[in-house]
């Protein structure tokens, strides 16, 4: 199989313009002849569906939520990047491109990342025009702050609720199209499989979560915008329903899966408190602008934090990474936290935590300033931990947060299955081996508002597609398979809950395929995952029936897919013996724990082909060529 990235030629700065010119267009009068399915109503899905509706296509949009406004994008706190240079600190499209490529440790495609930086500027304009209430300075202009890994202030924000406001903006644009009738909204519908006819994606099979009805829906193109799969780790910052079903099923129908093991571990989460916890809560990274991270110099020092003098503290990020300090990128900060804790300097009851301290900032700026900036985050922290961060330093620890892996796509955001487009966190592109803070929102909206509306037209105008209806044999066959899968799950009458099994899976992934990996651990993981999968199919307990609202069945359907995806995550991690970005292979590091990348052998994207459960997948490589930047060692010292 040859992977064609379809990156246009010419200078980097003009590739996208040129491509847009060269792409075929669909005449406005003809757009109504095309049906497009969009799965997901997060930033990527809602913005794409709204834009398709505006253009005049017939759109069917699906979400398992009761309302598009609940998509996981709503949870993003910190902000969205854009190269506006409003602060006159030297930002530019080139610098944002460069930071993103470097942040991703040179494992992303140059042309995609440059396009992302280019359209970032339009995204802010678009959202402001929609009435998104971004923070403003007293002069009435937009305010910015800086985010981990950047030395300029390019992050736009709406208090600590940026994702919410951006999503509500996209949702309102979507509801406007629902009102015009161009978009048909299908809430509480979960996509369970993809329909591929003659090698082309032509539809999806869904389950109505209220009635259990299994139905096929057909279209001329299918767009997956279904988010990330960090819930594979069970404990993560992701919303509880986040799943991998859509991308995993598409993978099983032929779509290649890129960089499956690359997930981002976020450095500033509230540490876990016990065994029965259901999820972890993120404290926005923007806190690192004013909070100072420290642990005790002495090992196992359990004294009250305020009793520990300045001399007895180790501000390890400022010490090791003087030029970035507390704003060192996420992977670097997460690993540094793990290292100090593993070495016995961790704080709090479990020793698996470090302090994020605002005492200096409060002394410097006053409580009111800090409250205005982070009030809601501080309240949230207090609610969860019963400790007041104005008085005591916060305790934080890294947690799984985002997945850079996802379905492989070309420059047009189309997978290798023609007609199947993948946008937002669901695809593997743009962030390489590590995502910079505030870049996922940017990518979701870039894909949805400013990339896919053009590239899908190129596909639709350039492809002859026979009409297919949901009664097509291929749809019937997929429906039958889906029903059989559900029957098999409903027959499980063992004595462990699906959540317990998911928790076991998550622990294995966290232990062996989490913040750092090694060959031995990955081997153990592989064995354990197949055992857990076997246990699931023998010993899980699924109650209730299909023709009803059944949360146990919903969860079983999702966990069954995670159990297969986990294999690929481990396989992918094992195949890459270099360290890069968030992927630290212990075999490939300096004595003081800094990652060693190996461009000679690993400057490629792993694109995996499915061969069946328990069978080794086939690895295809998309070689990455760096024509415009020279990969350098990523140092934040």
């Amino acid at each position, binding site marked *: 199989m040859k992977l064609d990235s379809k990156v246009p030629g010419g200078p980097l700065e003009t590739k996208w313009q040129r491509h847009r010119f060269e792409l075929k267009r669909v005449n406005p009068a003809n757009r109504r002849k095309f049906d497009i399915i969009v799965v997901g109503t997060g930033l990527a899905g809602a913005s794409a569906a709204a834009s398709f509706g505006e253009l005049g296509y017939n759109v069917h949009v699906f979400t398992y939520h009761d309302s598009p406004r609940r998509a996981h994008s709503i949870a993003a706190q910190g902000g969205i990047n854009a190269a506006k240079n409003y602060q006159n600190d030297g930002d530019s499209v080139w610098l944002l491109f460069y930071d993103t490529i470097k942040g991703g440790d040179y494992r992303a495609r140059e042309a995609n990342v440059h396009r992302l930086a280019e359209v970032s500027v339009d995204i802010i304009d678009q959202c402001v*025009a*929609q009435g998104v209430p971004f*923070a403003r300075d007293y002069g009435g202009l937009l305010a910015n702050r800086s985010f981990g890994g950047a030395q300029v202030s390019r992050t736009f924000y709406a208090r600590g609720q940026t994702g919410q406001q951006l999503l509500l903006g996209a949702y309102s644009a979507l*509801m406007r199209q629902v009102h015009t009738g161009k978009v048909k909204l299908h809430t509480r519908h979960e996509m369970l499989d993809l329909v591929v006819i003659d090698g082309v994606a032509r539809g999806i099979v869904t389950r109505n979560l209220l009635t259990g009805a299994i139905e096929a829906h057909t279209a001329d193109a299918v767009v997956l915008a279904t988010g990330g799969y960090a819930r594979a780790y069970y404990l993560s910052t992701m919303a509880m329903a986040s799943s991998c079903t859509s991308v995993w099923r598409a993978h099983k129908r032929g779509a290649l899966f890129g960089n499956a093991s690359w997930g981002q571990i976020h450095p500033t989460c509230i540490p876990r408190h016990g065994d029965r916890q259901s999820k972890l809560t993120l404290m926005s990274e923007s806190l690192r602008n004013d909070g100072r991270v420290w642990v005790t110099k002495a090992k196992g020092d359990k004294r009250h934090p305020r009793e520990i003098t300045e001399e007895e503290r180790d501000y390890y990020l400022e010490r090791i990474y003087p030029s970035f300090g507390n704003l060192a990128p996420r992977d670097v900060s997460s690993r540094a936290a793990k290292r100090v804790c593993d070495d016995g300097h961790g704080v709090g009851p479990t020793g698996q935590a470090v302090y994020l301290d605002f005492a200096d900032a409060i002394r410097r700026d006053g409580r009111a300033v800090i409250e205005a900036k982070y009030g809601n985050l501080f309240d949230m922290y207090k609610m969860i931990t019963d400790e007041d961060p104005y008085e005591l330093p916060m305790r934080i620890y890294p947690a799984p947060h985002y997945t850079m892996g996802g379905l492989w796509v070309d420059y047009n955001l189309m997978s290798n299955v023609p007609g199947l487009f993948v946008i937002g966190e669901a695809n593997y592109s743009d962030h390489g081996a590590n995502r910079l803070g505030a870049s996922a929102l940017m990518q979701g909206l870039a894909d949805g508002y400013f990339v896919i509306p053009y590239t899908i037209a190129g596909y639709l105008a350039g492809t002859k597609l026979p009409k297919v209806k949901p009664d097509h044999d291929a749809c019937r066959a997929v429906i039958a398979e889906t029903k059989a899968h559900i029957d098999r799950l409903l027959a499980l009458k063992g004595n462990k809950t699906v959540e317990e099994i998911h928790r076991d899976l998550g622990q294995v992934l966290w232990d062996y395929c989490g913040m750092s990996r090694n060959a031995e651990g990955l081997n153990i993981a592989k064995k354990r995952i197949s055992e857990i999968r076997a246990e699931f199919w023998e010993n899980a307990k699924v109650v*209730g029936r299909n023709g009803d609202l059944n949360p146990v069945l919903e969860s079983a359907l999702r966990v069954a897919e995670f159990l297969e995806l986990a294999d690929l995550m481990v396989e992918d991690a094992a195949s890459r013996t270099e360290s890069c970005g968030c992927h630290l292979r212990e075999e490939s590091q300096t004595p003081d724990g800094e990652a060693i990348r190996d461009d000679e052998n690993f400057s490629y994207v792993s694109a995996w082909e499915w061969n069946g459960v328990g069978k080794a997948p086939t690895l295809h490589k998309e070689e990455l060529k760096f024509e415009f930047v020279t990969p350098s060692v990523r140092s934040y010292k």
Partner: protein
Amino acid sequence: MKLTLKVWRQSGPKEKGRLVAYVLDDVSPDQSFLEMLDDLNRVLVLKGEEPVVFEHDCREGICGCCGLMINGQAHGPVRGTTVCQLHMRNFKDGDTIVIEPWRAKGFPVIKDLMVDRSAFDRIIEAGGYVSVNTGGIPDANAIPIRKEDADLAMDAAACIGCGACVASCPNASAMLFVGAKISQYALLPQGQVERVARALNMVAAMDREGFGNCSNVAECEASCPKLITLSNIQRMYREHVKASWKYAPREAREAAG
């Protein structure tokens, strides 16, 4: 902690519901309310019984999915909090807790503690947006906005659409939700062009969905997890009165249709 839970069980929209008592022996004060319900469900599932259905997703207080009446209070006893952010340390050992779904004509029960809030989407569909297509937009800084106005707009925009305002109001009024959206746009220059039509159409949609009127009980404000204030309802009234006075004939027809 040992707790007795009296949970509303209702197998479907048309079925009759009732409170069922369950006892949990081992509740940790550090657990969230939903994690406590997870524990209950684990016990039920292992006994082969159907778990209690409740809606939740982000568990961070932002998606607006969760929402329960706890001892008659929307989202429970702590002010400015969603159920997912409510921790069990707010209850005492030996407590009995009554857990019910939102109750309002506009929010029919689907199952147990889950209700249908799609009426909110239909109200937004009626005009809760600025009509701009993607692209061809002026620079974001081309129209300065006073910080005070942007902040006030953000206060209103913070609504998570959970429905606590409706559930806690004796009239099942949705005016805090609608008022917040109308206010957000009324306070921003981007919202001006459609200001009149928006107020008329959203209020009409709200009435169509069977939500009641505000009679200044202020339970909505007290129960709002995002601390959205009654002033938004006042602003909505002002917007609506001004709009009806100015554009009554045409817009009212539109709204009625």
